[in-house]
């Protein structure tokens, strides 16, 4: 499994690997929002955590369709499927690689970008915490979606439509926890729900993705 993880990480930082695409998209959205909303810093501070969460979610979507599509195009996927590594582990490795190249950089970039949205002092910690807890779920759910649409030409649109509804609970609880934390309220409940979604999808979805891949490879 580490072999596949290493390869995917190495591929993503090589030329044309797409590392940085999500990060650049995230940066652009967050930079543009203050221009669109106007200069009132109070409004920005209030909507900031939500904007950062939506931007992070959309940025995660951007790189999803490459998850299995590249391996499918060059024929590596059937070869990997016939290797000793079970497809469930393949899906998990892909999800972890996706999180390390998308979710983790987004989480780390959210704090400095929060300055642009005039976040309050307490909001930074909460934002980074909720993103760190929530983005793994986004990667795992997205990997499942990518497994569903592998082999379809122009599957990106279908992938987004399939995955976005599944992202909604993560977004609701993630943004809610960040908002409550920033306003000094008790954020335990949404935080626990967010952690539960991540733990549940990490435990179950690799198996679903493996089963779907097996069917799609026939």
């Amino acid at each position, binding site marked *: 499994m*580490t*072999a*596949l993880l*290493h*390869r995917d990480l*190495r*591929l993503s930082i*090589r*030329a*044309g*690997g797409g590392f940085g695409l999500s990060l650049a998209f995230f940066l652009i959205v967050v930079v543009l929002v203050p221009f669109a909303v106007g200069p009132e810093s109070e409004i920005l501070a209030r909507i900031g955590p939500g904007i950062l969460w939506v931007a992070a979610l959309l940025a995660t979507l951007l790189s999803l369709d490459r998850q299995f599509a590249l*391996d499918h195009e*060059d*024929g*590596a*996927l*059937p*070869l*990997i*499927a*016939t*290797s*000793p*590594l079970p497809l469930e582990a393949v899906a998990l490795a892909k999800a972890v690689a996706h999180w390390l190249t998308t979710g983790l950089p987004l989480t780390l970039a959210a704090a400095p970008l929060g300055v642009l949205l005039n976040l309050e002092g307490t909001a930074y910690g909460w934002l980074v915490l909720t993103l760190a807890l929530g983005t793994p779920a986004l990667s795992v759910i997205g990997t499942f979606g990518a497994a569903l649409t592998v082999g379809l030409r122009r599957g990106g649109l279908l992938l987004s439509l399939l995955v976005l509804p599944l992202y909604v609970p993560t977004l609701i609880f993630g943004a809610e926890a960040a908002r409550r934390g920033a306003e000094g309220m008790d954020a335990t409940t949404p935080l626990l729900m967010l952690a539960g979604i991540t733990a549940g999808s990490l435990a179950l979805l690799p198996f679903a993705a493996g089963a779907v891949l097996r069917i799609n*490879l*026939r």
Partner: protein
Amino acid sequence: MSLRVEGLSIARGGVPVLEGLSFAVEPGQALILRGPNGAGKTTLLRVLAGLAPPLSGRIDATPESAAYASHADGIKATLSVTENLRFWADLYGRSFGAEVLDDFDLRALRDRPAGTLSAGQSRRLGLARLGVIGRPVLLLDEPTVSLDAASVARFAAWLRERHLGQGGLAVIATHVPLGLDAPELDLGRFRASPRSTQGSDAAFL
């Protein structure tokens, strides 16, 4: 480790292509699959590799012992030749020995990004994967496509000495004579009869 197939029926895209197929391949033996385009050579290899389920029949061989090589080589263009091979070695939990580079004449190319290789060179890299992963059963789909005569001979020699000579076996779909002393199986004889092409829905309805 031998490969036995009994009464195998297989379908492509829901349409049965072969039925009543039986054969056995013993260690050290190769079996050459013949048949016109669309006869079901690739489908048979995919079923043997465990990628698709058979309609009926029995395959006696653990899928874990088989290595499948398709038309596409699964090469990553931005990784070097060595990195590509090392990935497959790691994935199969094997150590990567440099002698494979000699077997497939890749030593001079080993640090080149795989994307800059010619079609024949990438094919050699794709075949070198088989030398790296060391599986006893090879399922090869047109292994000699885009190889020149010298490379075909080199590959046939590798197959004879390094694989079959060491107790491995191979099922090869090819139109090019490899110079192997191997029986041929004409798939045309096992073509599925039209009556079975109705599919399962008809029976269900």
